[in-house]
C-alpha cells in the first residue's frame, strides 16, 4: 500500500517535469483533434499518431501516448453526440441518447456530462490501476511460460469468440491474425516462415502497418463504397454549455455506477468496452426516474455509458501493463508503442523501469485533468473540425495513414502490404468480420508460440506440463468454457425455438 503511494509520488515527479507536461498537452490536443474526426476511433488515433512519437525518448513518448489515448476517447464521444457516428461500438450507447439531446438543443450539457463523467471515471479507474497493478505484478512474477501460454489462450477466445455476434467469424479473424503473426524469421531456429523469398517479409508484419491498413484504409474504402447510404448531419451546439443543478443531480450516480461496470470488466482479460457500456445503459434505463425520456435524450444514458467506456479503457491498461496482454484494439496499439522502443510490458518492466511505468500512470491523471480543462472551452474548435467536407476529410486521413508507413519504411513492399490490408479491412467490414481479433492475433500469436515452445522445452517435450501447473490448468479450463459457451448457448436457443 505505502509502496504504491511512494511509487505514484515518484511517477508524479516524473510526469510534472515541464517537458513531460508539454508532451502530455500535445498528446491530449492531437488525440482529441484526430479522435473527433468521424469514423476514427481511439485505436486508429493511436495508430495514426505513432510515427509522430518516433524521435522522442521512451518516457516522453509514452506520456504523450497517455494523452493521445484519453484525448482520442474524448474526441470519439464528441463525434457520437454531435453527428451520431460512433467511431467504435463502445460509443454506440453514447450516440443513442447524446445525439437525441443534441437534436433537442441540449448538446452542451450532453458534452459536459460526458466530459466530467469521463474525468470522474478515468480518475477512479486510474487509482484502481495504480493499486491493482503492483498486486497483479506480484502474482504474475510466479507465472511460468505454460501459464502465460494459457493466459493468452483465454485472451484469444474472449477477444474473438465469446462476445462477438458470431464465434465462427470472430475466430476466423483471429486465425487470419495468427497466420500473419507467423510471417518472418522464426526466433528460435532462424528459419524463414511464409516469407516466399521476399526479404522485406523476413522481419515479419509490422503491427502499425496492419492496424492502419485495416482501420484507416479499410474504413475509407468502406465509407466510399456506401457513400449514397448515409447522410450525416452535424448538430450545432445551441444554448448553454453548462449543466444545470438538475443535470448534476441526475448525472453523478450514473458516473459512479458506470465506473463500477467499466473498470472490472476492462481489467479482466476479456476485452472490449461494449459490454460495460451497454450494461450501464440498460441499468440506467431501469433505475431512472424519467423512463419516458430514454430514447429521446436522457442525460443518464450519456453519463453512465461514457463513464463506463472511460473506466474500461483504464481497466484494459491493467492486463496490458502487468502481463503484456492487450485485450482491445487500442491496447494492442499501445503495446505497439511500447515495442517501438524495445520495451515489453509485464512484471519485469515494473522492476526495471519503474520511472517509466509510474510516470505513465501519473500522466494518465494529468491527461485526464487537462482534458477536463481544455475540452469544454475548446468545443467550438472541435465542432469546426467536424465540419470538414467528407472528400477532404477522408483524403486527408489516407494521406496521414500512408505517411506513417512512408516515414517508417518507405518501401514498395511495405506500402503494398498497407494497401492489401486496406482491401482486407474493407472486405471484413463488408462481410461483418470483427477487426480487433486480427490485430490481437498478430501481436499475441508469436508471444504465445514462444511461451509454449519454452514450456515444452523445459518439460522435455511433455505436453502434460500445461495441465500440471494449477494456474495454467485453470486458465485453459476457462478458455475452453469461453470457447464452447456461445456454441452451446446457441444450440440451446435453437432447441428452445424448436419446442415453441
Amino acid at each position, binding site marked *: 500500500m505505502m509502496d504504491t503511494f511512494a511509487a505514484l509520488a515518484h511517477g508524479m515527479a516524473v510526469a510534472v517535469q515541464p517537458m513531460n507536461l508539454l508532451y502530455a498537452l500535445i498528446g491530449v490536443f492531437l488525440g482529441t483533434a484526430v479522435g473527433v474526426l468521424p469514423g476514427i476511433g481511439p485505436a486508429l488515433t493511436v495508430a495514426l499518431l505513432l510515427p509522430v512519437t518516433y*524521435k522522442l525518448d521512451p518516457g516522453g513518448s509514452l506520456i504523450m501516448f497517455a494523452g493521445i489515448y484519453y484525448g482520442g476517447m474524448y474526441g470519439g464521444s464528441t463525434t457520437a453526440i454531435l453527428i451520431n457516428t460512433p467511431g467504435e461500438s463502445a460509443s454506440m450507447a453514447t450516440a443513442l441518447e447524446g445525439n437525441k439531446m443534441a437534436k433537442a438543443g441540449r448538446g452542451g450539457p450532453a458534452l459536459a456530462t460526458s466530459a466530467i463523467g469521463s474525468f470522474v471515471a478515468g480518475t477512479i479507474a486510474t487509482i484502481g490501476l495504480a493499486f491493482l497493478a503492483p498486486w497483479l505484478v506480484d502474482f504474475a512474477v510466479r507465472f511460468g511460460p505454460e501459464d502465460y501460454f494459457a493466459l493468452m489462450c483465454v485472451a484469444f477466445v474472449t477477444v474473438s469468440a465469446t462476445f462477438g455476434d458470431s464465434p465462427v467469424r470472430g475466430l*476466423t479473424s483471429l486465425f487470419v491474425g495468427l497466420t500473419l503473426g507467423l510471417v518472418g524469421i522464426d526466433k528460435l531456429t532462424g528459419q524463414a516462415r511464409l516469407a516466399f523469398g521476399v526479404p522485406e517479409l523476413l522481419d515479419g508484419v509490422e503491427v502499425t502497418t496492419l492496424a492502419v491498413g485495416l482501420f484507416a484504409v479499410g474504413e*475509407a474504402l468502406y465509407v466510399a463504397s456506401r*457513400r449514397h447510404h448515409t447522410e450525416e448531419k452535424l448538430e450545432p451546439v445551441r444554448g448553454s454549455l453548462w449543466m444545470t443543478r438538475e443535470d448534476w443531480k441526475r448525472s453523478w450516480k450514473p458516473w459512479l455506477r458506470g465506473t463500477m461496470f467499466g473498470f472490472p470488466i476492462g481489467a479482466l482479460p476479456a476485452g472490449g468496452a461494449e459490454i460495460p457500456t451497454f450494461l450501464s445503459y440498460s441499468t440506467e434505463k431501469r433505475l431512472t426516474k424519467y423512463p419516458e425520456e430514454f430514447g429521446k435524450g436522457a442525460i443518464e444514458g450519456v453519463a453512465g455509458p461514457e463513464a463506463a467506456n472511460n473506466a474500461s479503457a483504464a481497466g484494459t491498461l491493467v492486463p496490458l501493463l502487468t502481463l503484456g496482454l492487450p485485450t482491445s484494439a487500442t491496447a494492442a496499439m499501445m503495446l505497439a508503442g511500447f515495442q517501438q522502443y524495445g520495451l515489453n510490458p509485464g512484471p519485469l518492466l515494473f522492476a526495471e523501469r519503474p520511472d517509466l511505468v509510474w510516470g505513465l500512470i501519473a500522466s494518465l491523471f494529468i491527461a485526464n485533468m487537462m482534458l477536463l480543462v481544455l475540452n469544454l472551452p475548446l468545443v467550438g474548435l472541435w465542432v469546426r473540425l467536424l465540419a470538414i467536407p467528407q*472528400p477532404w476529410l477522408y483524403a486527408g486521413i489516407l*494521406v496521414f495513414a500512408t505517411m506513417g508507413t512512408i516515414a517508417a519504411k518507405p518501401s514498395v513492399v511495405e506500402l503494398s502490404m498497407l494497401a492489401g490490408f486496406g482491401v482486407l479491412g474493407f472486405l471484413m467490414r463488408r*462481410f461483418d468480420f470483427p477487426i480487433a481479433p486480427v490485430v490481437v492475433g498478430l501481436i499475441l500469436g508469436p508471444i504465445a508460440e514462444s511461451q509454449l515452445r519454452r514450456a515444452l522445452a523445459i518439460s522435455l517435450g511433455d505436453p502434460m506440463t500445461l495441465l500440471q501447473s494449477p494456474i495454467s490448468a485453470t486458465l485453459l479450463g476457462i478458455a475452453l468454457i469461453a470457447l464452447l459457451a456461445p456454441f452451446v448457448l446457441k444450440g440451446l436457443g435453437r432447441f428452445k425455438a424448436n419446442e415453441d
Partner: protein
Amino acid sequence: MTSGDSAQPPRRVDRAGIVIAALLAALAAVLVWDARGLQSAAMYGMGPEAMPVVVASGLALLAVGNFIDALRGNLPPRESTGPVPVFLILVGLALLIAIIGFGGGFILATSALFVTTSAAFGRRAVLVDSAIALVMSTLIYLAFDRLLTLSLPAGPLERLL
C-alpha cells in the same frame, strides 16, 4: 457477388460466403506447404513447423464453419456498394506506391492519393484539390523534415525546398 437483401428468403446459399470458405482453405494449404520446407531443430518440444500446422488446422476447421454458414445463408445482410469509388481509391494507392517506388518523392505521391480519394468521395474540382494537396503535403514534408528530423522520401519537388 450477391447483394444480400433483407427481403430475400433467409435460407439461400451465399456465394460470397463460399468464396470466403475456399480462401480460408487455400490459406491453410499454403501454411502446410510452407511448413514442409522447415527443419525441426528442436530436440524436445515443438519445432518451427508445429505452429503453422496448428494454425492451418484451425483455418481448415473455420473454412468448414464458414462453408456451413454460407450454405445456410446465415451471413448478415449486406448493403449494395458502388465499385467506382473503391476503384478510384485503389488507383490512388497504386499511384502512391508507383511514385514512391520510382523516386518521385513524398509530395507528389501523397498529392496523387489525396486527389483520387477526394474524387472518390464525389468531388470534381481536380485542380483546386491538387493545389490543396500540394500545399498540405509540402507543409507535412517540411514539418517532418525540419521539426521532427524524420526523413521522408525526396523526389524532384523536395530537392527544390
